[in-house]
């Protein structure tokens, strides 16, 4: 099955819920409506044979109004080696996405990581708690508003720790 056929199948099945098909560097990429992501995930897994979730992560685009957070899935068909990338955009004020843990066990920790760093709320996740950072942390550090420390600051003592 090539990229064009997968695109056809997805469009016939889901209509307007899937859009923005492109192929950067040969990798079929599309955007899915927030509400239908679980249906598409199941379709990818059961019908199209993408049994393997390669990767799941989030991206923060602060300048996109109401689409600030993107959750990115990368599927792979283990038989043919074909990969497909799916994006789901959510507003940062209400970052709710249905969890993929029911379909792919891989998603469990990857979603916890996306929650930890970006604050994406995966609805239905069995154990959505922070994974890397301490539980007391009250912000999501990989969001763009948390800039890294200014490298030119001079108010810290460098004698012990070279800066």
């Amino acid at each position, binding site marked *: 099955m090539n990229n064009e056929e997968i695109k056809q199948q997805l469009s016939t099945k889901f209509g307007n819920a899937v859009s923005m098909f492109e192929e950067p*560097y040969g990798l079929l990429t599309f955007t899915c409506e927030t509400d239908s992501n679980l249906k598409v995930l199941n379709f990818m897994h059961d019908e199209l044979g993408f049994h393997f*979730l390669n*990767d799941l992560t989030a991206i923060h685009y602060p300048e996109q109004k109401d689409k600030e957070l993107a959750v990115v899935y990368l599927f792979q068909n283990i038989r043919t080696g074909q990969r497909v990338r799916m994006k789901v955009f959510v507003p940062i004020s209400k970052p709710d996405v249905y969890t993929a843990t029911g379909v792919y066990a891989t998603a469990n*920790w*990857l979603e916890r990581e996306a929650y930890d760093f970006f604050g994406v709320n995966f609805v239905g996740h069995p154990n959505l708690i922070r994974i890397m950072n301490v539980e007391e942390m009250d912000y999501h550090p990989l969001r763009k508003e948390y800039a890294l420390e200014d490298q030119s600051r001079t108010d810290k003592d460098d004698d012990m720790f070279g800066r």
Partner: protein
Amino acid sequence: MKQNIQLPEGSVGKQTTTLNLGPTHPATHGVFQNILEMDGERIVDAIPTVGFIHRAFEKIAERRAYYQITPLTDRLNYCSSPINNMGWHMTVEKLIGAELPKRVEYLRIIIMELARIADHLVCNSVIGVDTGAFTGFVYVFEFREKIYEIFEEICGSRLTTNIGRIGGFERNFTEIAFQKINQFLKDFPKAMKEFENLFNRNRIFMDRTMGVGGIDAERALNYGFTGPNLRATGIDYDVRVAHPYSGYQDLEFTVPIGTTGDVYDRFLVRNEEIWQSLSMIRQCLEKIKDHDPAIFHADIPAFYLPEKQDVYTKMEALIYHFKIIMGETEIPVGEVYHSVEGANGELGFYLISDGGRAPYRLHFRRPCFIYYQAYPEIIKGSMLSDAVVTMSSLNLIAGELDA
């Protein structure tokens, strides 16, 4: 929210014991914590905790110029840093669309396969140590040292190598480097045979590892296993075959697979992969003879640092040197995912560039972070000592787990 297993109300009737294995425990080889619920010697439940050495590489990478990210990748799977380094270089090369000369690709394969051998040696010999056989460890660690000497000859460092540059290598391989590689290829097979003789059909070792820590192919796939751990279950997924990179398509090699996915099969798959790696290195050494021995990098002056003496004498070299160091080179806007077959699984780099000097977002697909979540399921119902062997057979590297 507390992660610890809470005692139920009126815990007098509690039959099981809570045991903290780790974070620093001699049997875990790294910073791993598992809160185990034990019924006698059997494990009822386990909760792994990760993140003890989290260093926020993905955040740091958002400020660093592309060439400065290589040292970060060193510290992912530090048992085979060169694979991580070259995976990152290839990701950037894919983004900028650079074509590499064949000789550079083969030299990269030589280095990556040496790194894979070193990593597998650590993992397999440590399985031996955890089952009580220290001798094999001593036999092969001498040769891991030899591999590190080869790295040292090529790039100057041993563990965190920072080897190569975007577009090739920082300098050509010396004659001594080739001598050392050839000497290694000559001496190592003997030690490896000895190692295999010690373990492969050893009754005690087999009893200790067969049927321990097994997972079936379907679960492994659902959990996102990759690398030797997936292949031990019988699925022949190898990134070098499925998505060939750096000239692996030109080489003849087989992908060893197991059947049961237990500790013993993982051990055997790794051993066989070492033999395959040796054969690949030999093939590459043969193949580079057809190419100009002076070539060690691609001709992409906008990304590859010029020779230092040229910087002092040539105008263009000075300009490019300045532009690269200051991060002023033209980087295309785009999204790219590139993965390499790391020593413990598929190591992926998801890079989003907005054309700036640093990546907009960089995500590492770390194989052991993904498959470690299956650990509680694998060890449920087994003995504590089996859990220790299972952990070392999964080839978990704390640096990669926590990124």
